[in-house]
């Protein structure tokens, strides 16, 4: 059944859209990643203009994060205090990101920056996680428990001023590195047009040793707030949010996120990290292939804009 989308200005199959939303929602609920780095390219692939795809993805991610974070909240798996600290940094990073984005666009290097940072980020995060989770699984296989944190061990940045105790996450650290982390994620997220969950989750696990069970809920909370801000910016500045496209994706997405969050609870920490690593790596490979492989067509149409 074809449905004409009033802002994207093309008809698409209703069930295809719901299915796409559902698949991305499942991944989003499972891993606590927004799924923007999957949904945006997918929408562009089916013909949605790039600005509409980026803007509308943020609505879908917001909805998926609501349902996902509610599930985790009910299981007491959200650290609100930690989330709030990340959001404060994230807001600052978003502003910096918008500024940088426009500067690079003026200089004409945006394409290069986006593609190279996508590949570098996804590949390095993916490889690091894959190596770690495989090592952990291998050791566990030999019946040795490997705690992520050795008792009493502290990293230098955790000892900086403005120390705060996060009871839910069982960590005690200076909030400065957390604000910086939020800021960096907000910055990268804005420039690349993604929520940044695939960076927050590994960073909290590996840099701050936050338990996996709490990380996902907290990451979803941070993504939710970021995406609400992004939706407002996209709707008012770029005017590219398609409410009908968002509705179909959201209907699929919120259902998918439910199943994802449920499945996520039954996964072991190392399994979770291995699967997320594989997902991130495969997307990284796809982007790498995009720039390494010879293009089928050297020319492409980048933008078509109607004069108003």
């Amino acid at each position, binding site marked *: 059944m074809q449905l004409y989308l*009033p*802002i994207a*200005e093309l008809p698409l199959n209703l069930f295809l859209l719901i299915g796409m939303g559902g698949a991305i929602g499942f991944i989003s609920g499972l891993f606590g990643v927004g799924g923007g780095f999957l949904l945006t390219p997918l929408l562009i692939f089916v*013909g949605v203009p790039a600005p509409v795809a980026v803007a509308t993805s943020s609505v879908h991610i917001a909805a998926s994060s609501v349902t996902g974070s509610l599930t985790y909240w009910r299981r007491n798996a959200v650290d609100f205090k930690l989330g709030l600290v990340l959001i404060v940094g994230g807001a600052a990073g978003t502003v910096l990101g918008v500024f940088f984005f426009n500067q690079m666009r003026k200089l004409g290097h945006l394409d290069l920056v986006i593609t190279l940072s996508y590949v570098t980020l996804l590949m390095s995060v993916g490889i690091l996680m894959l190596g770690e989770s495989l090592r952990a699984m291998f050791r566990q296989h030999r019946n040795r428990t490997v705690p992520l944190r050795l008792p009493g061990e502290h990293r230098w940045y955790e000892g900086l001023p403005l120390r705060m105790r996060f009871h839910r996450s069982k960590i005690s650290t200076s909030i400065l590195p957390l604000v910086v982390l939020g800021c960096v994620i907000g910055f990268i997220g804005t420039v690349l047009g993604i929520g940044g969950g695939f960076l927050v989750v590994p960073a909290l696990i590996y840099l701050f040793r936050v338990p996996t069970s709490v990380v996902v809920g907290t990451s979803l909370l941070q993504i939710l707030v970021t995406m609400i801000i992004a939706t407002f910016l996209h709707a008012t500045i770029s*005017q590219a949010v398609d409410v009908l496209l968002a509705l179909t994706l*959201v209907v699929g997405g*919120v259902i998918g996120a439910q199943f994802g969050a449920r499945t996520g609870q039954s996964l072991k920490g190392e399994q979770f990290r291995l699967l997320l690593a594989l997902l991130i790596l495969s997307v990284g490979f796809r982007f790498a292939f995009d720039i*390494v492989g010879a*293009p089928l067509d050297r*020319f492409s149409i980048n933008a078509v804009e109607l004069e108003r």
Partner: protein
Amino acid sequence: MSAPAARALLAAIWLGLAVSVPRAEGIILALSTREVAITSTYTGAEITVFGLIERDAQTTPRAGGYDIVASVRGPTGEVVVQRKEKYGPVWLTENRRRYAKVPLFFSTLSTKPLALVTDEETRSRLKLGLEFYLPTAAPGSDEFGFRNALLRLRREERALIDDDKAITMIRPDLFTAKITLPATAPTGLYVVDLSVLAEGVPLRTAQGGFVVRKVGFDAFVANTARFSPWTYALFTVAMAILLGWIANAVFRKD
């Protein structure tokens, strides 16, 4: 031009009717619709142009019969074409061209392949092709490559259509032209330019037009998004949160 005359002319174009004085041949056109309405179920449209070639006793006899060619030109806009180049191991966008004021939909209709109807010079004079709306480029130049890529890619996207079977002669002086509009064709005013030729020589031209626009729910959404963006954003965010919450409540087991 006086105001009533201008209004009458405007009305004639609006109605898709154009009448020329029958000195040699004349044409009368009528379009099957003046407005293509975009609704939620819109998947493109088909518009039929009916045309009558007027002749009288004084008209020169045309042994070879008539050929009809028409162009359908949509609203204009900007198209950006980019080209990838190999830098070390990677392929990156190295160059791009901006084409301003390009018709975002263009269709050439004819009774038979254009090459059989008329020569290159007449085609250029009648502007039968999107290439005549682009800046000229010397063959072999960089510019030429971009220009050709634009034409080729727009053809693949169905924003540029050549159809040499779209016009059917029902009788030697009566024809229909079928305009196929894909769903991605932009909203706005479309101009139909039609020419009657005999033995490659254009005899008469006529113009008609139609409008593509969103109506009902789709128009409401597009207008709200454009003119009340804050309300639109608020509604969208509220919808996302509400649906997320409902799904969570429905699926909750504990």
